[in-house]
């Protein structure tokens, strides 16, 4: 619909991991179980936006994030950065891609090498990518620490001397050291306390503004994703259920799963107490994804077509896509709330 090219596009990506291969299965001559972490995922990340990816455990959101930075290679399909298939990049081209697309990790304890000082961690990124002449590196480190609001004396210290929130800031500083265009943040704040979460989220919002970053924000916390994102991708069992502008998703979700997810997330309003369970049933195992719609087993609106035919993502409102056979699901609410306005 647009003439410009998305900065990062995911085109029909699938990813399988081999699961446990039990003796019984071997004896029966059956193939090993495979976890279908992603199946046929397609989405675009536009330059300068924050794209939220949300879903429950096993939905494939972390696998997708890792495919985007090429920590995983896609089994099928392609991830394109600026139009180039990233699986074709080698040598210096690959390093250039790494420089332009960075990742920040979830675990504030595991994501920093415990035997290196902050200065060594950030300095290594600067020197490997030759971001600054050697003599300017200490000054640049100080600048980066200031950017993520860490005290200047942090440089000489080791990761274990910092709190969880501070460690995440170090992770952000390391990613920013190579002046990337895209940052993929995988559950950036979910290991942090609420008040510290807010600090890091604010920092990310400010940095994005200042440095014109494109951010892919992967999280399980719907409130947080809604707050930070321009557009939101809702995933379930390795597939995209809905892609919507954040406001539209929250006012008028067009997929039953998005709606259930919204209802299940507890709101900060004691007046809204509700005793009805948003969604019954269990998360199915990704070892055995049902044919048809992956959500069919728990969907309150399921009908016979859902169990045999997998619905494809198709347009709903402006900039809104959903994968559901009920094409007018949520249409009434959408008409009531939104005077048709383009997404962002």
């Amino acid at each position, binding site marked *: 619909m647009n003439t410009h090219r998305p900065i990062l596009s995911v085109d029909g990506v699938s990813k399988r991991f081999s699961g446990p291969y039990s003796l019984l299965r071997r004896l029966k001559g059956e193939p090993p179980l495979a976890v279908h972490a992603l199946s046929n995922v397609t989405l675009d990340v536009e330059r300068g936006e*924050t794209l939220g990816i949300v879903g*429950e*455990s096993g939905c494939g959101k972390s696998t997708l994030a890792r495919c985007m930075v090429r920590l995983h290679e896609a089994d099928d399909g392609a991830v394109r950065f600026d139009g180039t298939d990233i699986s074709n990049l080698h040598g210096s081209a690959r390093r250039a891609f790494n420089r332009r697309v960075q990742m920040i990790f979830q675990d504030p304890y595991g994501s920093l090498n415990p035997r290196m000082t902050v200065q060594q961690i950030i300095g290594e990124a600067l020197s490997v990518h030759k971001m600054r002449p050697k003599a300017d590196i200490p000054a640049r480190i100080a600048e980066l620490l200031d950017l993520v609001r860490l005290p200047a004396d942090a440089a000489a210290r080791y990761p274990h001397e910092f*709190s969880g*929130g*501070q460690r995440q800031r170090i992770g952000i500083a390391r990613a920013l050291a190579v002046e990337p265009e895209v940052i993929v943040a995988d559950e950036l704040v979910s290991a942090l*306390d*609420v*008040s*510290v*979460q*807010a*600090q890091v*989220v*604010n920092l990310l*919002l*400010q940095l994005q503004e200042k440095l014109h970053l494109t951010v892919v924000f992967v999280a*399980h916390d*719907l*409130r*947080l994703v*809604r*707050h*930070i*994102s*321009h557009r939101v991708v809702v995933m379930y069992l390795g597939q995209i259920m809905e892609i919507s502008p*954040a*406001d539209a998703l*929250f006012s008028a979700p067009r997929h039953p799963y998005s709606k*259930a*997810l919204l*209802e*299940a*997330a*507890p*709101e*900060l*309003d*004691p*007046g*809204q*107490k*509700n*005793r*009805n*369970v*948003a*969604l*019954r049933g*269990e*998360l199915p195992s990704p070892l055995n994804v049902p044919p048809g719609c992956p959500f069919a087993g728990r969907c309150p609106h399921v009908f016979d077509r859902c169990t045999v035919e997998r619905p494809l993502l198709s347009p709903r409102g402006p900039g809104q896509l959903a994968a559901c056979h009920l094409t007018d699901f949520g249409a009434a609410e959408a008409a009531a709330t939104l005077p048709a306005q383009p997404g962002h």
Partner: protein
Amino acid sequence: MTASTAQTTMSDGTKGLVVRGLTTTFDTTRGLAIAAADVDFDVAPGEVVGLVGESGSGKSVTLRSIMRLIREPGKVSGRVEWGGRDLVAMPAEELRKVRGGEIAMIFQEPMTALNPVLPIGVQIEENLKAHTGLTGSQRRARALELMNIVGIPAAERRLDEYPHQFSGGMRQRAMIAIALACSPKLLLADEPTTALDVTIQDQILKLLLDLRDRLAMSVVLVTHDLGVVAATCDRMAVMYAGRIVETGTVAEVFARPHHPYTRGLLGSVPRSGHSRTMLQSIDGTPPSLTALPQGCAFHPRCSFATEICRTDRPPLDLIGAGRRVACHHHEEVAAAEPIL
């Protein structure tokens, strides 16, 4: 305690839980850590009370201290009144009858709280064996009934399965079934949904509310998630650095927080209609329990702090019926621009 008259009438008239001056300390290599200090709160029958705070605030320690589940070198003092008896001073033998009988507890991580080598059914029956005089077949029937109450499908078959064969949500249900075995009057829940996905969390929270109604039991729910408190609790107590800083009904506290920490916590959580705006975060990080600041423990992070906050610790004052706050400037805080 200054204004305990209001509460004594309550503890006399009914048989709820009354906690007074509960203090738990740990002797560590870095000095004495005061994990919970002078904690006062009440739980009326049938009431759901939320204990909210961040990591290290003392919420879980408080819950465990009620059941005396604090291991050496931890020390518990104060009073925990339950049915006219003091759980802190009670002999171990008697306490065993209360634990798992009248008061039950569920934990955050059901996989570690359940015994991995025993079938779920056996673990439920174990509790019945300890606290009731039921025969083997009666126990089996009761276990089946409990599995149905907590909503585990195909209960007959699942009684003989092991914890690893259950999903996270089902494990939490199984743990609740064990806790309910002897129809407790008080359920202590320590972050019961933190490890669960949001749709499963929603199911478990609503199950707890249903059970509260059906069994007329009280619940103390420890959580860090204010959304969970809003959705489930009647009253709440906010903890910071081992102390309760504010209590009241959930509606009151959310509508008009009187403590700057409560206010900051509420502001830290993203709400609808304010996309991509700065959150009202709290600067800094919680203090170490071995090196608490002088005066009010929150003052280094507080935008309302003045000289008195650096020198004098504010008492937990009564400011309305069942409404308490520990802040020198609570009126100012309450009068500040609303954040919700």
